[in-house]
């Protein structure tokens, strides 16, 4: 079980392979969390104010963990043996708090950082529950508290993301990434139209095959040796300007467009991708994935850079530390690998 799955289970948002299809589950989670947001009265307080409250909570808890790690451990049924770890978590809490206060009025990333921190806390509490030396009632008390604040964190982060336009009304994550390439829009449109080219620059794409009726079947590699698959159909196609698509069934809902915008003065073309998706690992899974640079936003950015390399230089640029090229997450030492 990898981290993403562990977190999904811990947070209990959704399983990794929902039978109803990820789009539906995403929408369901979204609807439920919005209902809770409204019923609990948090909506009336407003996401910005809730975020500030969470920021102060983070800093307060962080200081407590830093100064009185033993007391915090005892309160959550711990043995008081891992004071170093709790102090580190305290620093993390303070960092998340400061992040919330340093991101302007809508600190979505800061609150998402709290969600990732909650996931870490829950994983630690899970480990504490298995440890025979801990006080089980205390651990359960701690877990209940963390779960409660996790719910507030997730709802608040979602609301902030929505207000910033980083999430659709239906709760799908929305983002935009672009790259400038030294080629004409016509050439880039033609290159993009041939989906056989995609595996050449999309690092995580295993295969894309035509299934007839204008549809394609996509298989991508996900962390932990799993694959994510879906079918896709073209929804709009304007020559040399734009291609739009949306998924129809599969493990992950995604829809988007790629636009080819000529830069002024004949300086090549901006290739811009607008996308929305329901993450297969749930929102919390995405927060964790972001920490490991595996989030779809980062993958799309990396793939655009690879596209630029391929179009401009004719190859994917490789170094000794990154023999797979841009997007490789784990670095090797900068010495020849012998492979």
């Amino acid at each position, binding site marked *: 079980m990898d981290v993403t799955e562990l977190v999904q289970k811990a947070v209990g948002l959704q399983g990794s392979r929902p039978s109803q299809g990820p789009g539906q589950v995403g929408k369901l989670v979204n609807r439920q969390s919005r209902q809770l947001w409204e019923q609990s009265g948090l909506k009336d307080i407003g996401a910005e104010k809730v975020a500030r409250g969470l920021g102060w909570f983070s800093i307060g808890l962080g200081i407590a963990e830093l100064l009185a790690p033993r007391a915090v451990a005892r309160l959550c049924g711990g043995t008081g043996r891992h004071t170093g770890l709790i102090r580190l978590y305290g620093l993390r809490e303070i960092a998340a708090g400061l992040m919330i206060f340093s991101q302007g009025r809508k600190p979505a990333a800061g609150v998402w950082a709290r969600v990732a921190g909650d996931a870490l806390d829950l994983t630690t509490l899970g480990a504490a529950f298995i440890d025979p030396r801990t006080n089980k009632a205390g651990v359960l008390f701690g877990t209940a508290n963390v779960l409660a604040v996790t719910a507030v964190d997730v709802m608040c982060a979602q609301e902030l993301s929505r207000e910033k336009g980083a999430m659709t009304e239906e709760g799908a994550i929305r983002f935009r990434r672009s790259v400038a390439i*030294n080629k004409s829009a016509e050439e880039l449109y033609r290159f993009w139209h041939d989906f056989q080219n995609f595996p050449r620059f999309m690092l995580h794409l295993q295969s894309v095959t035509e299934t007839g009726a204008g549809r394609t079947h996509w298989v991508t590699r996900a962390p932990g040796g799993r694959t994510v698959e879906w079918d896709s159909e073209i929804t709009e196609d304007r020559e040399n300007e734009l291609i739009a698509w949306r998924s129809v069934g599969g493990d992950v809902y995604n829809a988007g467009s790629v636009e080819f915008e000529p830069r002024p003065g004949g300086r090549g073309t901006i290739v811009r991708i607008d996308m929305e998706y329901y993450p297969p690992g749930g929102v919390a899974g995405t927060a964790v994935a972001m920490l490991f640079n595996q989030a779809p936003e980062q993958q799309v950015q990396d793939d655009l850079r690879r596209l630029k390399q391929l179009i401009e230089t004719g190859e994917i640029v*490789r*170094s000794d*530390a*990154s023999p797979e090229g841009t997007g490789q997450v784990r*670095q090797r030492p900068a*010495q*020849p690998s012998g*492979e």
Partner: protein
Amino acid sequence: MRANCFHGKREMRIDNVPDPRILNQRDAIVKVSSTAICGSDLHLYNGLIPTCEHGDVFGHEFMGEVVEIGREVKNLSVGDRVVVPFPIACGNCAACGAEAYSLCENSNPNAWMAEKLMGHSPAGVFGYSHMLGGYAGGQAEYARVPFADVGPIKVPNDLADEKVLFLSDIFPTGYMGAEMCDIKQGDTIAVWGCGPVGQFAIASAKMLGAERVIGIDRFPERLRMAREKADATDTLDYEEVNIHDSLMDMTGGVGPDACIDAVGTESHLPGPLYAYDRFKQALMLETDRPFALRQAIMACRNGGVVSVIGVYGGFIDKFPMGSFMNRSLTMKTGQCHVHRYMKPLLERIQNGDIDPSFVITHQMSLDEAPEGYKTFLNKDDDCIKIVLKP
């Protein structure tokens, strides 16, 4: 093969590592005949440049014989003797098109790391941290050279390694430092740092027509080399005299027309201000110690140019922005666009305008490289430039 590898702060070791192989069809493999330790390698050695890892092969100044080429490399043949420029450049992107090779948009596969620290990424560089690509360096028996159809320059056999090796970095870097000063007849140029790059900046400033070139350092042997070999008209020892007062005295209060910072991130200064910046650096409140840069800005004449070729890694403190803005100064900077200068500077060497080998004080075998880093860092035995023979 044997290679000089990083194993943490001030710990280099000769390791046996696999031989490099062609990874892309525009690659070449070069059998290194000569390589050098650069002053900027000491920044890595001292742990000041982030994203270096255990096992990284260092070295970005090297030359040798082409022993293998990819299918797409049409301009080189096996057996060619080449000097390799330290920035890696694709030759196809907009930056390469503008001859700004050290800003190549494609050669750094780890661009995202540099973007986090610097906003945008410069080109990939051999043996210079993962943030700048994670490429194995040239302090080794062999090196893989990406985009070999763009970078390496063929050199004639009648020129010794020692004469052409520095086309890889320090000669073009010093030259670009002088070129950025936009030198006019009668100009006075002050150069902070008389290490190898400073020596070439001084020599280039003279070649480009400067009347008076003032070298600043604290090591007598470097100041002597500046006067006797690089043709500096004056030198100043900053541990002996007040640099600002001396420069004002020499220029009648006007200040040098242009100031070159050939020191970079690890500059020194006698007195409490050094302790203050060193302390902040130790606490990671700033990453670079910019004494030379601060002095250069304050000393430069109104409307003059500050040319920065010393390497900086991150953030500095107490930047005299008021002086800089109110006095209409211009700052020009950059890792050298080496590819742009290799051919014209090779011609200057062939014409006998300059023999770059004058900076060499030590020759060692590759196996002695870890010892060489220590010697160079401590300036033992009047060390100025070390050339290694694999």
